[in-house]
């Protein structure tokens, strides 16, 4: 190394050193700027809250505002979601359950919604609504003084815009649009009143139309449907919360809509954090990173028995009427084994569903359903009792049906066909795997061999669609009131319909068709009770369980009530001394 290169190296290092020092100084400077900015923001926030209180006081003096949620204003509610939504537009087919959790009722509101404590509709944006006796006319009248979060009044034009967007063939909302194909045309009476005319009566039409999330026309109007299809974020509606931001992969933040037309919730922000790992989610709850969590069933059972944990968290277990589905095993009636009702009945007697509830699901509040309707809802016949667990009866029924072990190999057979069936489940779901193993064991005890076929979801749905299974287990979602047509009508067997077990019963078909067109609630529910009993007798499925929602919620939230329809987070609040975020 000669002298010159030494000098160059020296200068190079000097230069580097200077750069590092400069970088450090600039970092300190930006640090100081940040703190200054925070002080200013703090001051602004305080000024705003002072303004708000004065405005509130003025409001009080000017008129009685008894319609207020109780409690103190402020604080955030941090939800933990196990997955990120793909879009915040619930009408698009690409939306999922997390989309609905985030936007519906918070950002977008509908014309009508269910009462919290009765299976009845109440107006949300609509003041008045009705369905004519013949079911062919549906009428809505909007409330006065309702507006979107930007202050624009809501009119029937927005209702029409929403309806036309959903039914536009270019919009990727085909599954949603399907609900509206019984509508013939609409008739705008004036800015506040609208009437829809139906092609045929259908009892769910009122709920479908009234349940549309009303989108502001002046924001979303489009020329090319693709522009709407590409929408993903920045939703704007009329609800009590407004969209603040979406940090992709991390969180979605909603801020209270200070311009809300109805009574405002007390919580200032709702943050939806995405945590993909169950264990990590529980840890995040315990360390206070998140406030609200839907735990995996095992964790709920374990944690809700822990005294220390109960002191810090509400362990909520409640029936969410609008979302309670059921888990079932379906018997493919196109197979020689399950075409016979006696064999299906034998299968139901074979599965110890109480054991599944107590030892696999570990949820003592879960119920064994007897039919496809929401178990506490009006369509379900509460007098029907589930078939008991009785392996002896299973053996009897199988003998009766002619399935006996004629060749002494330990497996029953009939006409030379051994009773060996393939049972398809979704792979990787612990709960389903455990249930499947129990079924396999129980079957072995009565002389039936079960071959378990776990498939990844995409393969599973493909095979289910093509009826490539002997038995299958899955869960259907539910609602307060549902129409059994898609799953149970015989027209839905062909062409990849949802009647994948091939249930074909003329009497059931007739009941389904009649009930759809019966507007009188009591008459309709009587028809559904009869349909329910046929399903119970025929056992196309063995209904395994239906269960309440389970949630953990930080105890600093007060006024947490459980209603007939579930919970309502808008009525929760955090007392001032316990508030954590500002």
């Amino acid at each position, binding site marked *: 190394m000669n002298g010159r290169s030494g000098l160059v190296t020296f200068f190079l290092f000097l230069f580097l050193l200077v750069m590092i020092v400069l970088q450090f100084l600039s970092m300190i400077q930006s640090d100081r700027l*940040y703190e200054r900015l925070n002080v200013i923001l703090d001051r602004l926030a305080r000024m705003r809250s002072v303004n708000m209180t004065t405005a509130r006081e003025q409001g009080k003096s000017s008129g009685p505002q008894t319609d207020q949620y109780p409690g103190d204003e402020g604080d955030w509610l941090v939800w933990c979601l196990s997955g*990120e939504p793909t879009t915040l537009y619930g009408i698009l*087919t690409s939306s999922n359950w997390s989309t609905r959790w985030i936007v519906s009722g918070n950002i977008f509101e509908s014309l009508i919604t269910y009462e919290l404590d009765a299976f009845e509709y109440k107006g949300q944006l609509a003041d008045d609504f009705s369905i004519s006796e013949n079911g062919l006319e549906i009428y809505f009248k909007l409330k006065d003084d309702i507006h979107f979060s930007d202050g624009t009044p809501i009119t029937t034009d927005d209702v029409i815009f929403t309806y036309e967007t959903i039914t536009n063939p270019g919009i990727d909302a*085909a599954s949603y649009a*399907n609900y509206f194909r019984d509508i013939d045309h609409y008739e705008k009476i004036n800015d506040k009143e609208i009437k829809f005319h139906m092609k045929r009566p259908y009892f769910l039409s009122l709920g479908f139309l009234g349940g549309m999330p009303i989108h502001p026309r002046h924001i979303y109007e489009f020329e090319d449907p693709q522009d709407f299809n590409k929408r*993903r974020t920045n939703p704007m509606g009329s609800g009590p919360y407004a969209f603040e931001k979406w940090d*992709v992969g991390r969180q979605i933040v909603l801020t209270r809509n200070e311009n809300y037309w109805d009574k405002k919730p007390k919580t200032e922000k709702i943050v939806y954090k995405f945590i993909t790992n169950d264990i990590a989610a529980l840890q995040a709850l315990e*360390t206070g990173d998140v406030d609200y969590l839907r735990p995996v069933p095992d964790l709920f059972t374990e944690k809700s028995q822990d005294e220390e944990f109960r002191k810090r968290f509400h362990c909520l277990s409640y029936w969410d009427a609008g979302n309670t589905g059921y888990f079932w095993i379906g018997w493919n009636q196109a197979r020689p084994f399950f075409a016979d009702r006696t064999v299906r009945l034998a299968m139901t007697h074979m599965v110890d569903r109480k054991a599944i509830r107590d030892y696999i699901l570990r949820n003592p509040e879960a119920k064994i359903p007897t039919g496809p309707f929401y178990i506490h809802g009006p369509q379900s016949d509460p007098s029907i009792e589930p078939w008991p667990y009785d392996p002896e009866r299973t053996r009897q029924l199988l003998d009766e049906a002619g399935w006996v072990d004629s060749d002494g190999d330990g497996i029953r057979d009939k006409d030379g066909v051994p009773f060996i069936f393939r049972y398809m489940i979704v792979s990787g779901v612990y709960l389903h795997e455990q249930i499947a193993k129990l079924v396999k064991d129980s079957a072995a005890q009565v002389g039936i061999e079960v071959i378990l076929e776990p498939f990844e979801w995409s393969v599973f749905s493909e095979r*289910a669609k093509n009826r490539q299974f002997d038995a299958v287990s899955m869960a259907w979602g539910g609602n307060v009131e549902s129409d059994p047509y*898609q799953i149970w009508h015989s027209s839905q067997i062909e062409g990849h319909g949802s009647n994948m077990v091939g249930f074909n019963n003329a009497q059931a078909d007739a009941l389904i068709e009649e009930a759809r067109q019966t507007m009188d609630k009591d008459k309709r529910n009587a028809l559904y009770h009869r349909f329910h009993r046929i399903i119970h007798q025929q056992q196309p499925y063995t209904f395994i369980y239906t269960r309440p929602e389970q949630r953990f919620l930080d105890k600093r939230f007060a006024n947490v009530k459980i209603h007939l329809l579930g919970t309502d987070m808008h009525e929760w609040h955090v007392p001032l001394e316990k508030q954590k975020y500002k």
Partner: protein
Amino acid sequence: MTTYIVRRLLLIIPTLLGITIMVFAVSRVAPGDPVSLAMGPGGQLDAERAADVREARMRLYGLDKPVHVQYWVWLKRITRLDFGDSIKYHRPVIELIKVKLPITLMLNIIAFVIIYAVSLPLGVLTAVKHKQFLDRASSVALFMLWSLPSMWVGQMLIGYLCGPTFFNWFPPAGLSSNYAEQLAFFPWLGDRLWHLVLPVTCLTYAGFAYLTKQVRAGMLDSLRADYVRTARAKGLSNTVVIFRHAFRNSVIPVITIMATLLPAMLAGSVIIERIFSIPGMGLLAFEAVTTRDYNVVMAVATIGGVLNLAGLLLADIAYAIADPRISFESTV
């Protein structure tokens, strides 16, 4: 040298083409497609209507054309660096990747630096103390670390170090706290580093064993070499012999490893990102595969392929620079 590099660059084109054809074919042969996956096996729609919906959506995503046509369309787009739209997110794939790639790169580069910072000195040390206690103890320890699956370790770390039940030392998920936006720069940096400790730990520990072993083996070879004996005979100090003579020569294999370690770590971060809820490329790729989001799968595979090939090329060039005995001119 230049001709070699040009040749290698030209070779990259058919290789990449091969990779994309393979990935494209495999993704389409796999059962299921994004539309039926989104629609599930039924439910709300009746049969006749479901078929219509399905057809409309297939058309919307361009999946109604024959597979080879779809590939051709994709290839034409890719020449303009357009990766198409994500089916799941309805937005350009490139936008998704722009957000997610930096996160994964950050994670892996930090892990990379730590692996090298620990393994190089440790490898040299164990080689120098060959067959002594330190060498044996570290061998056993590293081998044990290497055998631990990171999926399990991640889960254990979250279970024991991230909650009030045992030790509440680290955050269990994500890259920053709820209040991170309100923090000044240094507290923010601290918060970020605090979140990075566990994921980076999971990404690094297995690498220690591998790289240390390589460095150690290289060092042992060099230490036995004639020129080291000569250097010692000249009376040079031990430090000079080890670092100037032996270490320099044993560093060559370590460079090639760099090229193979990077892709392996990118693959590994799929698992780590899922466990620690880190929104990086790994999680994106995982979701894309399970939801059959073809354009995203293709984009991730292509970018991964380019990174790998570039890594290999750089390693070869670095090889030639580090070791004058290697000349490509004669072999090409």
